[in-house]
């Protein structure tokens, strides 16, 4: 069975975002961009499933500007087989539209499993996988920390939930979203980075997918983007005794 993995190009997780002074959003000019960390975990999982003989081919898809090809190449260097770049230009694209595009690709590619990150570290939405699962009418295994394909038509997914862990058995095809502890992504070796340059990446437009252009128009109007309130650094205490005294008599929280 084929695995489809969606990868998003986002601000690198080590970079502290800088806001534009006019309130129009985060300034991404000359900022280091990387593959969304949860998507990197998704790519790793799909490659491991292929190495274990459970998956025959790992197809990556990225939706965004032409620069998203770099993100696909990152995943190809890790070991994915080929990529699809859906060029939608620069504007941010919402999870609902992403889910619709992924649905169209999952169907035309006839994949057996879709693996996506549980959230993107830029918009922090945590929606795409669930939306895709609903649109395809496939089962979902969100926030996965174990993915165990049992047969051509069953997968066990262990999920990180508020109270601990939960294991589900899903019929395939299914949609899985990754959590942090699913795996530790590998580093791509130099030879694999070179090889990845030759792997096929097909570039498609919305029209190629038979989707109308207007359908990626955002539903939410972002009126402004502002910095959160900043917390001021407080006072230094000398030792445990002073700390307890301050918490009791100054802050009143003990």
């Amino acid at each position, binding site marked *: 069975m084929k695995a489809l993995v969606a990868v998003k190009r986002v601000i690198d997780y080590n970079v502290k*975002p800088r806001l534009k002074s006019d309130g129009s959003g985060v300034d991404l000019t000359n900022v280091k961009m990387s593959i969304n960390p*949860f998507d990197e975990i998704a790519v790793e999982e799909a490659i491991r499933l292929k190495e274990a003989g459970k998956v025959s081919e790992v197809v990556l898809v990225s939706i965004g500007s032409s620069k998203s090809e770099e993100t696909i190449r990152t995943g190809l260097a890790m070991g994915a087989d080929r990529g699809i770049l859906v060029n939608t230009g620069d504007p941010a694209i*919402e999870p609902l539209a992403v889910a619709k595009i992924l649905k169209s690709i999952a169907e035309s590619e006839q994949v057996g499993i879709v693996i996506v990150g549980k959230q993107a570290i830029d918009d922090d939405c945590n929606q*795409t996988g*669930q939306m895709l699962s609903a649109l395809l009418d496939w089962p979902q295994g969100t926030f996965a920390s174990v993915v165990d394909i049992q047969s051509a038509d069953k997968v066990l997914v262990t999920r990180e939930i508020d109270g*601990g862990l939960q294991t589900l058995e899903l019929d395939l095809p299914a949609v899985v979203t990754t959590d942090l502890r699913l795996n530790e992504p590998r580093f791509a070796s130099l030879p694999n980075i070179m090889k990845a340059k030759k792997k096929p990446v097909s570039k498609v437009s919305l029209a190629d997918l038979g989707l109308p252009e207007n359908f990626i128009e955002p*539903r939410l109007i972002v009126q402004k983007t502002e910095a959160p309130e900043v917390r001021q650094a407080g006072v230094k205490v000398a030792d445990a*005794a002073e700390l307890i005294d301050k918490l009791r008599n100054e*802050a009143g929280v003990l």
Partner: protein
Amino acid sequence: MKALLIADHDNNHLSEQTAKALSAASQLGAVDVLIMGHDCTEVASQAACLSGVGRVLLAEHEALKHQLAEPCAEAILSIASEYQAIVSAASTTGKGVLPRIAAKLDVMQISEVIEILDEKTFKRPTYAGNAIQTVQSNDSIKVLTIRTANFATTENAPTSAEVVALDITLGQQRSVHISDKVSDSERPELQSAKVIVSGGRALGSQENFNATILPVADKLGAAVGASRAAVDSGFAPNDWQVGQTGKIVSPDLYVACGISGAIQHLAGMKDSKVIVAINNDEDAPIFQIADYRLEADLFEALPEITRLLS
């Protein structure tokens, strides 16, 4: 505007998250609360006591016992057309099911709402809480998850709301619940605790974590949190992780021990009322947001604190 609030519960107890999400939903208009589960009439009675609840809708079904996203979405969609807003706490259950509702209704969900400005305008954090967006939704039905750390809990009402049983028919299920591994501890839940003591990578092992963090937490009647590094290293269970991609908390007192203060961790705790940081590195970023900084080796400071509190 009429809002439907999806309740979080374990078939016995209504979660405090729901009482907090209710104070958000009430800002939109009249609120009905939907309880989906199995043998959970007790939960319906608890919800009926909350102030501001119009009706409690009780959907009991064998297939809803574990509140899996697919059957819950089916149940919600069967009544969604009566409402202009579908609301839930941003719990793992809410996060799992609400995007399915949004997709089926063809609307964009607004995730992790921290403030409601009016019926269609909301504030939500992005970039690990470093960029707060004000967004307007013109969709006919608003689908919202609520970041409960930003809302107070609803008090009980003098009289109970009416409980209405719903007759739910569900299609063939293709997700089956196999098992849960939940920690049943006597400690308060992270998201409702007044005090949280959290440990990071510096603890070095699960034994150290238990021997150093837990006694202080016990003395303070606190919930226990952890950084991602501590969870990844197996010092603490996954459900203790605080941060951008773990739990978002805002206790009266948050004590961060041996945690450096990466933006992903700060995203989960910087709205706490009082923050204490214990770290042996004077340049640790956590100190920049701490009200009280104790520059010390935690293996000395924490046992000392435990002793002084005894």
